[in-house]
């Protein structure tokens, strides 16, 4: 028992990027353990997905042909069944929104410990995981004294493994009746359509929690007006209903790659950074010198936006 089972993520006919990352995480852990890496591909065009995921370092792909899209009862049941069949030391699942919907059920069903949202993994006489806490302000090491173990891995932390190889594919029989499932997917909806597509903008002025009050947005609107920029925001601004969803940058909002991204009062939580790290030049204004946004900024202003932004407006008036 020294193998690793990883579960691929796909949606609406396409393999999601985290699948290539979880293969690398799984391969590295399997190497530490001296075992094989098994990859599970569940639902949809499993043969097509298996072909996409025939990657160097995967020892076997197990396909579960059932249903078209993600269903947590299917994923939890099939993953647990494969686990019992293969008896791995660890099962790795993505910490994606769908991962959040089935991974805890897998761990509970198998009665194994769950380490969620790992950003690094090592094995030395037991699994050691690195996790963040307190909104990414600190990192922690957690050690698991029991085996086997279930882990969810954060996307963007392992480099995608792209090198192709011939990998044996086996169909795994798992009986599943979707109509009997208590949670049934009815469809999908794209949100955030609207007047402006922030993904097209060359210059984004993006505002976050630091703006404090809705009426203070006027200040940012004025800056946007005098600079000809487009306004976007981090999640809390949209959650508060101060800006529409189509202005939200981040994991659940839009991915943007402007020439310049000016982040005002945005701390730089990992979900936000996922949506804007591809910007050519990142400039951050924040009162907290330790805010994670400065880790990815090209230019930083440690200061109060209520002093700096009016002065900046003055520069362009």
């Amino acid at each position: 028992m020294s193998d690793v089972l990883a579960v691929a993520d796909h949606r609406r006919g396409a393999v999601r990027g985290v699948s290539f990352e979880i293969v690398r995480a799984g391969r590295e852990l399997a190497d530490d353990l001296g075992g094989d890496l098994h990859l599970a591909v569940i639902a949809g065009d499993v043969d097509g997905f298996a072909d996409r995921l025939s990657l160097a370092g995967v020892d076997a792909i197990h396909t579960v042909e059932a249903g078209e899209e993600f269903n947590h009862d299917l994923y939890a049941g099939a993953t647990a069944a494969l686990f019992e069949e293969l008896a791995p030391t660890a099962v790795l699942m993505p910490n994606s929104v769908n991962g959040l919907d089935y991974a805890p059920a897998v761990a509970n069903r198998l009665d194994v410990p769950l380490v969620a949202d790992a950003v690094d993994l090592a094995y030395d006489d037991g699994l050691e995981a690195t996790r963040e806490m307190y909104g990414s302000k600190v990192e922690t090491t957690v050690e698991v004294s029991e085996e086997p173990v279930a882990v969810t891995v954060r996307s963007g932390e392992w480099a995608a493994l792209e090198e192709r190889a011939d990998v044996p594919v086996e169909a795994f029989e798992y009986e599943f009746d979707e109509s009997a499932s208590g949670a049934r997917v009815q469809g999908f909806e794209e949100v955030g359509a609207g007047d402006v597509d922030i993904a097209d903008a060359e210059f984004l002025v993006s505002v976050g929690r630091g703006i404090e009050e809705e009426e203070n947005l006027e200040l940012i609107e004025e800056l946007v007006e005098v600079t000809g920029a487009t306004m976007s925001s981090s999640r809390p601004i949209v959650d508060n209903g101060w800006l529409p969803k189509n202005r939200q940058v981040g994991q659940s909002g839009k991915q943007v790659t402007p020439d310049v991204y000016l982040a005002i009062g945005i701390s730089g939580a990992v979900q936000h950074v996922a949506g804007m790290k591809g910007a050519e030049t990142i400039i951050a204004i924040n009162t907290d010198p330790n805010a994670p946004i400065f880790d990815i900024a090209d230019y930083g202003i440690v200061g109060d936006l209520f002093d700096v932004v009016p002065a900046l407006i003055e520069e362009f008036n």
Partner: protein
Amino acid sequence: MRRTTASSTAVPPRTTCRSRGVNRPEPTRRPLPTVSKLFTSDRGNACAMKILVTVKEVAEAADDFEIEGTDIGEQYLEYDLNEWDDYAVEAAVQLSEEYDDVEVVSATIGSERAEETIRMALAKGVDRAIRVWDDDVAAADLDVAAKTRLFAAVVEEEDPDLVLSGVQAADDGFGATGVSLADEIGFDWAAVVNDLETEDDLSMAHVHRELEGGIEELTDVDFPAVLTIQTGLNEPRYASLRGIRQAQSKEIAEFGLADLGLDADAVASPIARTAMYEPETESDATYLDGAADEQAGQLADVLRDKGVVSE
């Protein structure tokens, strides 16, 4: 207006919400309801619905802090109601306002300090609260499985129809307890819910799950269910003065492990935090220094240099 009119059971309607205990059948997987099913109720009539909201008091670290051992020093931590749970509380209270005979009970695992947070939830409209704590719980490093066992015992005690929890806790961010609990107690579930509509007979919910990249999944979930609530679902209210006053007289029941039929094994965890450290900063930012107008002047030059503003 009662919403349980179509019930055919012989038990007369009651106005108080009490646990229906052993009379309730085991939750079963039901097929897709037909239209007629949607407009009738077989859910009994002691109470239209009981909602359990799991609520956590979370710690937030100050901008400047120091690590002591494997945690941030107590003096650098401030405690508050978990942001995700605030939306879950609001969702529950809104349902209690929309339907007759809905009781909202909050459940917290936390020390006496957490009562302040619990009172806030009570002030916002939660009817009564449960706080799970004793010396064994205090001494434990609770992992997902341990929290699942504690909340499962509370569910057994309270017999809710709907459990609402936040997607994750702001401090340790596991994001797993709600779904783990659902699996343990045999409820259906949906994770990361950012839109919620219930059928009038409270037999099921139509939810949106917020996926990545601006896509939402539309899912029907049968009750009894656990829904993990994403921020932005609603606008959490502020507690009114009247609510705060009323909260003082609402019940916060304390449960220890023994009260829940559990022993210290229930909170034993094989996961231990052995180190905490500040991540190495990788910042190679050029800092624009000086007074605000000097900083703004340099920033204006950068923007002009990048060609995104004219002048």
